[in-house]
């Protein structure tokens, strides 16, 4: 069968590759191609993802992005004034006087297409997003939003990804050990004590850590994601430097979150302990540690995964504040800068990217669910 022409294949997208999306038949065909590459067959039932579900779930994902993009487009336009006038006003405030300000405003409005009817602007905006073009940063013109976001996003994803991995692993492990009847008594006392940070906001945890370990003890740098004068690259020196800089921000997130996961896990473990299959596992004379991870944790972790998908949005909020405290050059700092500079283009772009990454994370957890719980098969109905 000849491959249909897929127009979006010509797009070159660097920062995020999920926008190779156009509508209609070619997309579906492309998805089928991708699906069969990963061995997902049509009509798989038990413990798998049916193609039908995959396509529907992806459509929901793109619908989310479209709604987000539209809201982000509409909301600033409801406010009086326009970004160009605001910027020129700011310039004239700084410089004292701007010559021909009226003409400049007109020229720039023309340049950014703000004189076109709203629907033309809207389609131009959506079209831009589809091509990975989020417009210009007004405060740092001619830098594009894509460029700025492209520089900040990997840092945030790295920070959040590693922090999530740590707090999810440590939290669930602590919870499991709290409930296990063979855990040494010492752990059962120490773990709850270490969870006292759970009730303080990430902002305070960040300040506390920064003060103690960066200011007082000087073990870790106070700000930024890598040392000044370092050239980013895949060298051991640079990676060590990044880890050194990232430890405190990651710890700030882990400290305030892991206790929550430990408590949830403990509750689940207690429920699992009362299950009939636990008695059989005991009667079978299996090794205790094997029973712990293969019978107890394996079953208790399932609801925790769901909770993780639900909590990702909240997590991002916390990360923004932590980044600001540590002046970490990720998305959080970028957003705050954009807000401070009233950089409309950048605010729109960063909001959109944060929504996209959150939605993507939830999508991935959603789709991986049948892989970890054999009872769930994501079939289209």
């Amino acid at each position, binding site marked *: 069968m000849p491959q249909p022409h897929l127009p979006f294949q010509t797009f070159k997208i660097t920062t995020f590759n999920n926008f190779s999306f156009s509508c209609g038949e070619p997309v579906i065909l492309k998805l089928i191609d991708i699906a069969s590459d990963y061995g997902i067959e049509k009509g798989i039932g038990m413990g798998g993802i049916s193609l039908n579900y995959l396509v529907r779930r992806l459509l929901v994902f793109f619908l989310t992005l479209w709604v987000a993009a539209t809201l982000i487009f509409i909301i600033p336009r409801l406010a009086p004034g326009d970004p160009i006038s605001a910027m020129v006003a700011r310039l004239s405030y700084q410089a004292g006087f701007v010559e021909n300000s009226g003409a400049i405003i007109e020229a720039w409005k023309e340049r950014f297409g703000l004189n076109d009817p709203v629907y033309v602007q809207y389609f131009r905006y959506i079209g831009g997003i589809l091509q990975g073009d989020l417009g210009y940063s007004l405060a740092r013109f001619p830098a594009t939003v894509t460029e700025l976001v492209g520089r900040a996003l990997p840092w945030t994803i790295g920070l959040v990804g590693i922090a999530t991995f740590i707090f999810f692993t440590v939290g669930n492990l602590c919870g499991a050990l709290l409930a296990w009847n063979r855990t040494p008594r010492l752990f059962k006392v120490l773990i709850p004590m270490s969870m006292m940070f759970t009730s303080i906001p990430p902002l305070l945890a960040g300040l506390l850590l920064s003060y103690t370990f960066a200011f007082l003890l000087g073990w870790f740098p106070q700000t930024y994601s890598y040392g000044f004068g370092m050239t980013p690259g895949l060298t051991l020196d640079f990676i060590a430097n990044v880890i050194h800089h990232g430890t405190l921000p990651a710890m700030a997130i882990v400290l305030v979150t892991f206790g929550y996961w430990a408590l949830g896990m403990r509750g689940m473990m207690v429920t699992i302990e009362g299950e009939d299959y636990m008695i059989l596992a005991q009667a*079978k004379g299996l090794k205790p540690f094997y029973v712990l991870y293969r*019978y107890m944790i394996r079953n208790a972790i399932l609801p925790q995964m769901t909770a993780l998908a639900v909590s990702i949005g909240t997590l991002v909020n916390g990360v923004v504040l932590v980044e600001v405290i540590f002046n970490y050059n990720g998305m959080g700092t970028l957003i705050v800068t954009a807000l401070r500079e009233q950089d409309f283009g950048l605010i729109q772009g960063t909001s959109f990217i944060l929504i996209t990454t959150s939605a993507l994370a939830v999508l991935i957890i959603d789709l991986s669910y049948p892989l970890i719980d054999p009872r769930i098969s994501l079939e289209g109905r």
Partner: protein
Amino acid sequence: MSQQKRNDSDRVVLKVDNLRIHYATPQGNVIAVSDISFNLYEGETLGLVGESGCGKSTTAYGILQLVQPPGYIVHGSIEVDGTEVLNLGEEELRKFRWTGLSLIPQGAMNSLNPTMRVKDQIIDVIEAHEGKKRDKEAMRERIFELFQNVGLPNRIYNMYPHELSGGMKQRVCIAMGVALHPTVVIADEATSALDVVVQRIVAQTLIKVKDEIGVSLIVIGHDMGLLAQIVDRIAVMYAGKMVEIAPVENVYANPLHPYTQLLIDSIPSIKERKPLKITEGITHDPRNPPSGCIFRLRCPFAWDHCAEVEPPPINVEEKHVVACHLFDEQFEERRAHAYATTANP
């Protein structure tokens, strides 16, 4: 199944002696199993019956060392092939489990780990006792053989428990229970949750596998009709006491203990409707049992002596024991009188 042959072996494989199990509650100890003793012979199938809450499952879990808190074993002795189970250390007990005593659990529906394939749950018990197996092909053959024994199709090898029917899960549990050819298998109401047809098939499978592999079997249940079809001897429990152990023909044709009589009488008949007699009398508080005979408050034949002396187990014939004063030789007259007055002795 009427061609049931009596088991003639005299070798005792499981000897339970004076076993007592309590459940600790804030209001005092509930006596779940009260000083029971019995023998299980090689190749024998013993049925353990009684009302709900009479301690039959607790007895089974006591033998298996699986009594869950707040329950605990007060005293007693459980010998399997000469090994005293209660004296085993933690690791010894782990190794002894499933090779000495295995369990076919009560709720097969929920007794399989939902996140593990059927094969993995059988493999894990084999590997826990025989060490890691390198030869995957041999393991597969071994499991297929187990499947064949219990009449399961090979296609379920890679399936998860939720993909099986109730009867199939029960068969998986049976296959698992005999995988290591244990000395004694305890089936704890293994058929309770199934419909009568599947119940019968599963029960027959159980007996077939038992005969092929040559294990001894304890079947716990309250379905007297089903038990009559599959067991060699029946042990009747009442309020934590074992009141009668008898060959199955004797129990149905000539029940001796008054409680056994009432129990047999309460089996529902398809042919006629009859009132339930067993509700007569009062039940006692399990924390504070009555003096003397445990059944005297509900017994139609009780007299003063029953309140004073606890009836000892009396051997009326080989492998037939009853704990009732009526069968003491000195009360022969009373027995003759009592049994003459009942319509259905």
